[in-house]
């Protein structure tokens, strides 16, 4: 079984998900077997404003462990990540980062804010 440990920068309690990557998809948004797919399919919310289609950065996560166990990022994901706040060398988009290795142990941090949510969206 693969293991995904999720830490939240906003202080929410850590979550651990154990799953069989061969059973993907677990939900309907993001690439099958992606971090987003695994989280949503196991009842753990991750923002995905564009529906998990690699068109925003709201599912940005920082991979703390197991970065090399994830499927490679595409040029499109890299283009999008360029615009993510708090970008790190191990940043990925949750909707695109696929966990295929059944023995993978992945640890991620969900950043506190996304670039889209920092703006004040409404004015009088």
């Amino acid at each position: 079984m693969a293991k995904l440990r999720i830490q939240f920068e906003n202080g929410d309690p850590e979550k651990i998900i154990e799953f069989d990557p061969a059973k993907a998809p677990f939900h309907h948004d993001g690439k099958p077997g992606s971090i987003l797919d695994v989280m949503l399919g196991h009842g753990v919310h991750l923002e995905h404003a564009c529906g998990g289609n690699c068109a925003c950065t709201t599912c940005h996560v920082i991979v703390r462990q197991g970065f090399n166990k994830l499927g490679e990022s595409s040029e499109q994901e890299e283009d999008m990540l360029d615009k993510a706040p708090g970008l790190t060398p191990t940043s990925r988009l949750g909707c695109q980062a696929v966990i295929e290795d059944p023995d993978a142990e992945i640890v991620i941090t969900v950043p506190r804010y996304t670039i889209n949510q920092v703006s004040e969206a409404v004015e009088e």
Partner: protein
Amino acid sequence: MTAEPPPAAGAKGATLGARVEKIFDHASDTRSLFLSLAGGKHLRFIPGQFISILIPLGDETRSRPYSIASDPEHRGPFEICFNRVAGGRGVAWMFERRVGDTIDFSGPFGAFTLDRAPEVEAGFIAEGTAIAPIRPMLKRALASSPREGAPPRIHLIHAAPDREHLLYASELGEMAKKASNFSYEPVIAPAEKIYDRLFELAQARWVLSDADRTRQFYICGVGKGVIRLRDLLRGAGYERRAVHYEQW
């Protein structure tokens, strides 16, 4: 000004409610909704952004993105447009909305944006309803003067399978008449050939015609055709960050 507190990424984002003020059908399968916020409040966004609409489907709620097609300076209801997709339950729900209904959404979101006039020649490429985010970008680009002297040229290629799906064609045509630096190229092509045609046109205009590689581009459309256009332009020598795109 009323500021919504930014929510944590681990929690569900702040939700706003919008009332459907008006419905306009561009074609039998393509519709615009005009939405207003409660209390006459104004939605702030950058041209090119989208909202994420919460759509109840059975026992769950899905969020689906809809680009804002109106410009941010417009103080009335903002506009989203969309078309029917075979088997698309979310968009079917959207087509069931009526004037007076309330829609819940979060946002605006998205990094495919243009918030000031380009400082170099710019090319815009869109297919069908993917003109939605491009429309406010063009208005912003033409409304803001970047510097002294002649403004850089802006060219739009918009392709659709027939005339009725060339959304905002008369408005874009009028904009081209008024702005000497803006040219509008509507293209009608069979649905299965649209991206081949866009590829040919982009290649002829921006790759084969000269050696200038200082232009910037904004491409929006559906599927892998968008990536082909991106790769055409980047492969021809344009800077990676000069080729902006959104693939639906």
